């Protein structure tokens, strides 16, 4: 149920080792759609609920008020189930006709399934759509920063397992510095430095001493969890007023843009960190694919020896880019303390770094796709929050699994064989 499922397209030009292409029939998508359609029928029709589901499209503070969308639950369920069946049929027919189901068809399917599920869960209740989306973005912000850092680092050839540690170090340092100085901006800078520092350890060990990158990354995560946990309970918690009450960033409403129905409240009534994130995604994308920096970054991650033979210093390029990646992830850490929660808590990142890593792979090492993947994971997490608040018939324990289920399905099922930077994870050893 992903809206950004990438489909590996066969190259149209013949590859060097010759020959023509023959379509390999893949029933994977159709089988997945069939399973979800059956599940949909069971849920929406067999266990269909009566009542009216209300979708609130505006908040009380909006200038332009959209009317609430009222869907009769049972009818909606039936209509959507039929549509799902139709799409499944089309995809089966497409495979028989030796073409691939287009990506938009799968996206439409996913949206329909989602709407059906929401309507079913919200029978005789109302779902605040802007709130659902706003929360999704909030939960996705650290994931997006983490994923951007992951993309930069892996494109340069170093697997960044330490995203989790960089997030946590950023969160801790920003809380500490912002509390002491009463300046959230200084906290932000401190978070970047902390992330960079963790990154530099990863970079030194993996680039200079050729230690296995995954092992260094895991060890760093454990180290940061231990260190922040220790400092938190020994130093920070006893002096919470002085050390753990950072000022938070204020929400900034962007004029005009923030009044666009639905989108405005979600994207343009955010804090400075989120606006920095928008810029970061654009800059990283532009930088990686359109500048000299990006060309060299990708070259050392794909074929370091080739980069070396044209006079690029592979070790230095990798080192500094992994460090930059740490700074970007650090920003995500600061969001925990300065953007959302407002104080540091022990192990507060709670695995966000690993979900960000999944977003990197799901996004196929592309900053934009990774961002979309992170948004999807954020959405899954917040869906669980919203449904437990309005009181859905699904057990909350089951809903808690949702973000992770989505991650597993997304990475394992829909990505399939995706090709990362060729030299990612491999040290470059010059003789």
């Amino acid at each position, binding site marked *: 149920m992903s809206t950004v499922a990438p489909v590996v397209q066969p*190259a149209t030009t013949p590859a060097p080792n010759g020959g023509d292409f023959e379509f390999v029939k893949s029933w994977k998508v159709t089988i997945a759609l069939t399973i979800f359609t059956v599940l949909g029928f069971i849920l929406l029709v067999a266990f269909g609920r009566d009542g009216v589901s209300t979708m609130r499209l505006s908040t009380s503070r909006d200038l332009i008020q959209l009317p609430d969308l009222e869907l009769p639950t049972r009818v909606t369920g039936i209509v959507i189930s039929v549509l799902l069946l139709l799409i499944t049929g089309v995809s089966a027919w497409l495979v028989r006709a030796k073409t691939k189901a287009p990506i938009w068809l799968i996206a439409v399917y996913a949206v329909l399934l989602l709407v059906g599920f929401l309507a079913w869960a919200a029978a005789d209740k109302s779902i605040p759509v802007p709130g659902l989306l706003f929360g999704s973005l909030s939960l996705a912000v650290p994931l997006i920063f983490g994923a951007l850092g992951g993309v930069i680092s892996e494109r340069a050839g170093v697997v960044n397992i330490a995203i989790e540690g960089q997030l946590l170090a950023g969160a801790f340092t920003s809380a500490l510095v912002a509390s002491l100085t009463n300046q959230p901006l200084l906290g932000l800078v401190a978070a970047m430095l902390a992330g960079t520092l963790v990154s530099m350890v990863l970079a030194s060990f993996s680039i200079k001493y050729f230690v296995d990158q995954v092992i260094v990354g895991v060890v760093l995560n454990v180290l940061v969890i231990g260190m922040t946990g220790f400092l938190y309970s020994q130093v920070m918690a006893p002096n919470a007023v002085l050390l753990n009450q950072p000022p938070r960033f204020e929400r900034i409403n962007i004029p005009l843009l923030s009044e666009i129905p639905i989108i405005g409240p979600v994207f343009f009534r955010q804090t400075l960190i989120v606006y920095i994130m928008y810029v970061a995604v654009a800059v990283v994308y532009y930088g990686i694919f359109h500048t000299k920096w990006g*060309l060299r970054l990708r*070259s050392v991650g794909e074929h370091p020896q080739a980069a070396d033979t044209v006079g690029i210093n592979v070790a230095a390029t990798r080192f500094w880019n992994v460090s930059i990646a740490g700074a970007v992830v650090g920003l995500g850490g600061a969001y925990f303390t300065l953007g959302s929660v407002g104080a540091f808590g022990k192990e507060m990142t709670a695995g966000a770094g690993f979900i960000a890593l999944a977003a990197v792979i799901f996004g196929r090492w592309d900053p934009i796709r990774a961002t979309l993947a992170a948004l999807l994971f954020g959405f899954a997490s917040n869906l669980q929050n919203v449904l437990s608040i309005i009181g859905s018939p699904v057990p909350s324990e089951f809903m808690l699994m949702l973000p992770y289920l989505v991650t597993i399905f997304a990475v394992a099922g829909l990505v399939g064989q995706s090709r990362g930077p060729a030299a990612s994870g491999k040290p470059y050893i010059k003789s």
Partner: protein
Amino acid sequence: MKLELRGITKKFGALVANDHINLTVEAGEIHALLGENGAGKSTLMNVLYGLYRAEEGEILLDDVVQHFAGPGDAMAAGIGMVHQHFMLIPVFTVAENVMLGHEDTRSGGRLDLVAARKRVREISERFGFDVDPDALVEDLPVGVQQRVEIIKAVSRDAKVLVFDEPTAVLTPQETDELMVIMRQLKEAGTSIVFITHKLREVRAVADRITVIRLGAVVGEASPTASNVELATMMVGRAVDLTVDKDPAVPGDAALSVRNLSVLNARGQVLVNNVSFDVHNGEILAIAGVQGNGQTELTEALMGLQPRVSGEITLDGKSLRGHSVRQVLEAGVGFVPEDRNEDGLVGEFTIAENLMLDRSNDKPFVKMWNVQRALLAKFAVDKVKEFDVRSQGIDTPVGRLSGGNQQKVVLARELSRELRLFVAAQPTRGLDVGSIEFVHERIVATRDAGTPVIVISTELDEVAALADRVMVMYRGRIVGIVPGDTPRAVLGLMMAGEAPAGEGAAA
């Protein structure tokens, strides 16, 4: 530009790869560096290019001593290199590869791809190449990739251009075209160092020849020297360039392949509907430029490819869809093309490697126990029989030279009862002595009545061994012709042109 190397010495641990090598290349000459695999030619050039730091010696360009800290310095001084393994980034376009390392940018730090494309087109036109600047390198045939390497070097105004074994991946026609390009470059004043171990090419294009053996210069030769003279210099003793073999006495067809196709995961057809027979007591050589489906064909025979259609029968029994173990038990012996990757476990001893594909059952395993004593005796015998030079049967195979490693693979495969012997690139990277040995064993296997398939990209090897030659191009069989077919005809077939007249049909 005149290039001079004086007393270059490069050591890797105890191994002296280059021993006080002197070499002078005059401006505008093609200077061939001739030597066997492992003689130290590539090491010398990597020193010149700044990739390795030499322990002793100096590099002079136009009589000025140079100090290269890395390839960047060498390039800035006007040295360019076309590497044996192309130094191109497969997922970049041609233009991106050419600009990498000396990128022009426009406002906002944006890469100036327009200028890069223009530069690629200009240079392509000058040499008559047909290269699309926006094509991804991984989609280009190897011959074109090599031209991208040349464009890369020329775009940096290289005055000295090193070609490291440039013809290894080319068809004979492409090789001839490369020679034309080299002469063109020479006329433009570029000095060229041409590294190779192929005598024919040296004599065709070189102005002067320096021969290297075991890391040291053994002398200069003129291009008018005969093949035998050059080979003797290169190897250090008289060598027999032909393989002694009697005419084949082919028996019945043993292996029969019908309509075999192999697809990869992306649906690309790598082997396209091939059919052929191999008879008892004959050598069928499969010729073709690397990457035209030969590898996949042999892997399909061995049961190593997942997407295979068609039929393979050996002595009337089907082999298709069987596991590798079943194929081995049917009596197929296999020498893989990459012995380090697929043929041997480098950390294992010679003895352990000799029983690798017989680790399931008697005689080497009884009641789940490896019969060490039996294995040791077997290994001692085989090491003697196949002349494996080592410190003993407990030496890890990874420490042996390429030739001795290949002898271990041969010893293992030929010590079973074989009904079919498949040898892929059996002499790749070997010294002349080992090549002679491997060829003798292959012919002996044939003479014992076993059907043999030899896959080779080297025309010399094909000509020396084959009773019949099957040429593959883009996954298809171009034709099956007698072993004494002239090189020129085989060359054309390797470029996809079917032979006129007899023997064309499979």
